[in-house]
């Protein structure tokens, strides 16, 4: 089980800030996760319709879409950052 967190408009479109998810075996990479989540419902589909724009952090470190999700305790999905 992994805690998945959402921020900014990803959070708003999915409709929740976080959830615990048991990932199926076929979800190997960050990219797999995004494509799998996208199928869940309209909210996810809307949030993740352009997966390439979604930034991902694993255990609070930035992760590329080809990185494996195995061993993640916490995965966060969010839009490109606009702080500073």
């Amino acid at each position, binding site marked *: 089980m992994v805690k998945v*967190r959402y*921020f*900014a*408009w990803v959070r708003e479109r999915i409709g929740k800030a976080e959830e615990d998810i048991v990932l199926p075996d076929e979800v190997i990479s960050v990219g797999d996760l995004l494509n799998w989540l996208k199928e869940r419902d309209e909210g996810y589909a809307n949030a993740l319709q352009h997966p390439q724009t979604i930034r991902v*952090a694993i255990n*609070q*470190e*930035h992760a590329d879409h080809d990185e494996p999700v195995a061993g993640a305790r916490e995965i*966060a999905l*969010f*839009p*490109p*950052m*606009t*702080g*500073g």
Partner: protein
Amino acid sequence: MAEPVTPTVRVQTEDFDVSAEVAKLTEGRTDVGAIVTFTGLCRDEGGALSALELEHYPGMAEAEISRIAAEAVQRWPLTGLLAIHRYGLMRPGDNIVLVAAASSHRQAAFEAASFVMDFLKTEAPFWKREHHANGEPGAWVDAKEMDDEARARWSR
């Protein structure tokens, strides 16, 4: 330069005072020749905005700014480095972010402060949303390509 200094990183709702923060950064030192500060403020975009709302990823925000700051003290001979980023609701004119770099030499202080800001913009997990002049929440601010280009200057 001996050991790199340990940067100070804070993520907070409270405002900050630039003079007080800089004083702490240089306190008891007589080897500081140059301090560069960057302060980022909330703009009203010609009166269109009543506020900016800043969301952040608690934990990762501190960790990511700390990683950027650690890289800066490795790259430049700094005597002190500070980064503060606020979150919550900011009114036009409010402080949002402060980066202060102290060094014996001005070029190091300028470059380090500029480096930290460029990475903070593109790597630190904060998101800005506009609040319209009528008080209604508006659009999330789009990331700027210019910011990615600014970051790319530093690759080596």
